[in-house]
């Protein structure tokens, strides 16, 4: 798989994730879309690492794994907290701070 | 990909799948029969295959005593599951409901792919040994010519990340519980799914923790290499099996694996006395059968994992094949040969003996698991969690630190 195809797929997945983040109302789906964006980056890293024959890209992917795991743990804690306050996780219900 | 490699791979696949599926069927019978024998009962003995015999006064008499001590109950179980009505309740989430059973079966079957069940072998030499004894020398030459002296593995997939692959497959198995429970749209199922998910995630944590000590000892996650490293003998009589290095973790890891399998005493997600059937309450016919089959296959898979990590895999102490490259590299003063306590034996004897020893160990472990299942009462939910987080996790952490210190000191 040539590198520009790798980048094209990664770009497509990144944009899918970004669209999910901006267009979905369900907070959990928004978090899932963020995971999708992180995965597209992982994909690009693995593709480039394969192209360059350098395992450093894999180390970077491992770091992103750690970040993703922490992000989901914290994100889910926040979701649970928000659900306790409003009995809902639709982000439209959390617009109190809006001017 | 040359032809001999493909042939060996297909034979391996046939062996693994045949072994697992048959174990899954047999264990349904073993479970009942062993439970009966342990409780002074007789157990399953009614299913029979009718045999027509000529009656005395002409006509046919059906002989109905061909029961084979109840072995056909496994068969009738399968037939019953297939023949029953596959009812999908109207309130379930159809898509998730239908895919959930596959998340139970596929990981259970796939996990066995990385377990070495006979070690490295030379099929050409082995087959010509066997055929030479029978007297088919020309056929032996043909097969020897086909395979050559090349060494192949009696293992489905020789992965570099073997042990991680087992963990990956195991973690995918959690989805069966979670998705089945959620899709059933039933309070019992959802409770079972919540319990199952939390129990399996928790026990996966210290399942990884408890095996780390062994990984420190072996220094690899390659199952093939781990198996080979257990072929040595210390001081002439102590086999260098994992259970010798990590006796405590043997029990902890076994506990974790049994908790992953969700059977008594860890049957919180199913809990007949509280949750009807837990996460698969709404399932019927073969979909429910897939869950049951996965459970029984997993007994065999757990035994395979335990044997290959802790009980010397396929090794018989003191028996070495010419293909054990790790062993011969450790002992440069010896010349590579097929030895049985020093005596030279044919290659085929060693390999067949090894496969048999692996199978016997696996069967013994299956027996131990079923013994446990029929001995212990079930834990309460909080007891399961406390045992996991407050007892087994600290033990495995302390063990890891001690192991690392000892390994560092010895190096």
């Amino acid at each position, binding site marked *: 798989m040539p590198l520009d195809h790798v980048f094209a797929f990664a770009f497509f997945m990144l944009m899918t994730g970004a669209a999910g983040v901006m267009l979905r109302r369900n907070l959990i789906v928004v978090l899932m879309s963020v995971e999708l964006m992180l995965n597209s980056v992982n994909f690009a890293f693995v593709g480039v690492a394969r192209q360059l024959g350098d395992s450093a890209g894999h180390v970077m992917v491992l770091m992103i794994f750690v970040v993703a795991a922490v992000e989901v743990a914290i994100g889910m804690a926040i979701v649970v907290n928000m659900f306790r306050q409003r009995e809902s996780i639709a982000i439209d219900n959390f617009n109190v701070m809006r001017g | 990909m040359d032809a001999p490699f493909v042939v060996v791979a297909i034979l391996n696949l046939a062996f693994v799948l045949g072994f697992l599926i048959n174990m899954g069927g047999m264990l349904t019978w073993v479970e009942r029969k062993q439970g*009966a024998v*342990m409780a*002074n*009962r*007789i157990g399953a003995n009614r299913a029979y295959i009718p045999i027509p015999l000529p009656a005395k006064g002409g006509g046919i008499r059906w002989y109905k005593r061909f029961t084979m001590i109840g072995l056909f109950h496994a068969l009738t179980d399968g037939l019953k599951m297939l023949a029953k009505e596959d009812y999908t309740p109207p309130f379930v989430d159809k898509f998730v409901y239908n895919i959930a059973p596959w998340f139970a079966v596929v990981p259970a079957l796939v996990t066995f792919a990385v377990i070495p069940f006979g070690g490295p072998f030379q099929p050409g030499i082995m087959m010509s040994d066997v055929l030479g004894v029978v007297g088919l020398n020309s056929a032996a030459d043909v097969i020897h010519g086909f395979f050559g002296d090349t060494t192949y593995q009696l293992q489905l997939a020789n992965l570099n990340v073997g042990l991680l692959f087992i963990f990956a497959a195991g973690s995918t198995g959690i989805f069966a519980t979670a998705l089945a429970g959620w899709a059933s749209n039933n309070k019992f199922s959802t409770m079972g799914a919540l319990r199952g998910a939390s129990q399996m995630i928790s026990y996966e944590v210290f399942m990884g923790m408890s095996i780390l000590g062994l990984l420190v000892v072996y220094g690899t996650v390659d199952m093939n290499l781990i198996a080979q490293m257990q072929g040595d003998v210390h001081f002439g009589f102590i086999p260098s099996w994992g259970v010798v290095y990590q006796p405590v973790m043997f029990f902890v890891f076994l506990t974790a694996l049994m908790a992953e399998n969700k059977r008594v005493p860890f049957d919180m997600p199913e809990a007949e006395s509280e949750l009807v059937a837990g996460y698969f309450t709404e399932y019927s016919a073969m979909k429910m059968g897939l869950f049951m089959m996965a459970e029984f296959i997993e007994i065999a898979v757990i035994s395979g994992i335990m044997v290959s990590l802790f009980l010397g895999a396929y090794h018989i102490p003191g028996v070495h094949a010419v293909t054990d490259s790790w062993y011969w590299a450790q002992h440069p003063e010896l010349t590579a040969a097929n030895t049985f306590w020093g005596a030279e034996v044919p290659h085929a004897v060693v390999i067949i003996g090894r496969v048999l020893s692996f199978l016997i160990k696996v069967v013994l472990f299956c027996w131990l698991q079923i*013994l446990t299942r*029929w*001995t*212990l009462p079930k834990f309460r939910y909080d007891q399961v969690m406390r045992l996991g987080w407050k007892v087994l996790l600290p033990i495995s952490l302390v063990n890891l630190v001690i192991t690392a210190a000892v390994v560092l000191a010895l190096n």
Partner: protein
Amino acid sequence: MSEDKFGRNEDFPSIVQAQLLPQPAYQGEFTEGSLFTYRNPSKLTWMERLYLPAILSGLKLTASVFFGNMAQWTIWFFKWITGRATEADKGATTIYYPDVMRPDFSPINRGKHILTLRENDDPQCVACYMCATACPAFCIHIVAGEHPDPQIEKYPVRFDIEIDKCIFCGYCEEACPVDAIRLTPDVHLVDFKRERMVYDKEFLMSWNPTRSQEEHVYPGDRPRTSD
């Protein structure tokens, strides 16, 4: 095995007596003239909370039973080959239930109903509806008719019991003023069709208590007069 006049195991009275005795309380003692004492179990020690020693001792127990029974089965197998095996050689306490009844199966069990007969083979029942009224499951249905004999007021034209609804409480037996309905110990009341679980008068008027193992006929298998 000797049996008493009810066909029971000779140990049966002692078993009943043992169950009637006051049972000792959990981890407490019972002495005559004193009150029961209940003690909660003490908190588990650290060693006990590991569960492992207790589990291993339990496994030892069950494994010893297992191997003992396997030895017995092995002996049975060799006897079976020579054709001298008996059921007792299996070493199991199992009774093949529907084929073999326990000797202490209680003769005062409440099972299938029977309508008692007069001397001329008519049912004793006078269709007074007492049993149908007393029935908590509403499973008795009676249609009354005028009896030709002026001494007897009524007789049941139909007397149906939905045996699948019946809870075998015995209230009909208690309520009957003429001892026309009784409950027999027969508990093998099974069928494959729900319609056949309605027992009509003719069927209720007969009962074969000496059903042998070879016949092994369930009530639903018998020809029904009203079918």
